[in-house]
């Protein structure tokens, strides 16, 4: 397998494996937010704001994996 093929394969694996954790993480954040919203619909404002922040934290890790994949394909 030459270098070009390995780079493409590595990019695919990087993004694929890198999206498992954040996917589960974002789902868990959503679960917590929806449960809290169900218990206390009046606290909608703070719950939604904090949910967006927590989702951004969890998604940042997936974005790191995306950056690695993009660098592998287009730069390296």
């Amino acid at each position: 397998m030459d270098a070009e093929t390995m780079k493409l394969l590595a990019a695919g694996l990087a993004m694929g494996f890198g999206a498992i954790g954040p996917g589960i993480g974002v789902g868990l954040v959503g679960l917590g937010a929806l449960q809290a919203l169900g218990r206390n619909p009046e606290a909608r404002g703070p719950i939604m704001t904090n949910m967006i922040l927590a989702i951004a934290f969890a998604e940042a890790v997936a974005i790191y994996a995306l950056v690695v994949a993009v660098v592998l394909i287009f730069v390296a």
Partner: protein
Amino acid sequence: MPKRRFLGCSFPVLIVLVVVVLALTVISILSGALGQALLGDMGLPDWITVGRPHVQLPADGIFHISGFTVTNTLLASWVSIIVLVALAWAVTRRIKLIPSRLQSLLEFAIEWMLNLCVDVAGEKNGRRFFPVITTIFLFVLFNAWLGLIPGFGSILIGGTEGHQVHLLRGANTDINMPLALAIVSFIFVEYFGLRSGGGLRYLKKFINVGQFFRGAGQLIRGKVRAGVVGVGMGAIDIFVGLLEGLSEMVRIVSFTFRLFGNMTGGEILILMMFFLAPWVLAIPFYGLELLVGLVQAIVFAGLTLVFATIAVTPHEEAH
């Protein structure tokens, strides 16, 4: 009885709209890569078929100002600065007690940000943090959204290296701009942390050697058990302090890559969708890009606000 209206249009207008949308869908599928793969070479004219997308990660230079290369992303950030300043000037030129439409739109945005700052940081700190946080939010938002205006990336111009480059490119896709904003936010957080309650108290969070030296002193004075416990806990304290300092530094990297990755990923995604089927596949992803631009602006400003609030809150002793 009023005439029946579908989505606000009368029936003939609706038929015309449906036909136009269907025609555009068919043409876009034919001219993109999907159609070319399914139906082979149909001899469509050059201006309809879509060429291979060319993704460029580093920004292209446009002209030089005495040795400093001005890139197309820098030009786009200047454009968004000009747009923001012009908007603010146009609204406050004749500011009224009963606001006009543009004024009430801007008042809505400013009031929303002020409520967010005061909710997270408390009344006094919220007002102190408000200018920088709102600037970061509006700058990131306009950088992201101006890049979505049709025609923004279409102007081609001869670049510094000779080949044709885009005149304007979304400023968030160049890694230097998110890096600059992350450094600004870091300096902002550290400045307010050092200013509240004196510099030494803030630095004690990271260099936490008090317990360690107390334990060493007790050992020297002969109280072995208390001394050993003190030294042990002190070592853990020093380690935790160093880790907190490291996580402050890593925040710069994480802010940079979160904004850069989201924006560049969105740009590449839309590029690929244009390659596959120019008009019909790109529209849902356009909507996604609008949402992602707004969410990333909120996240950048909101996270800076949260970290600044943590920095000025007095550290409660847990032990």
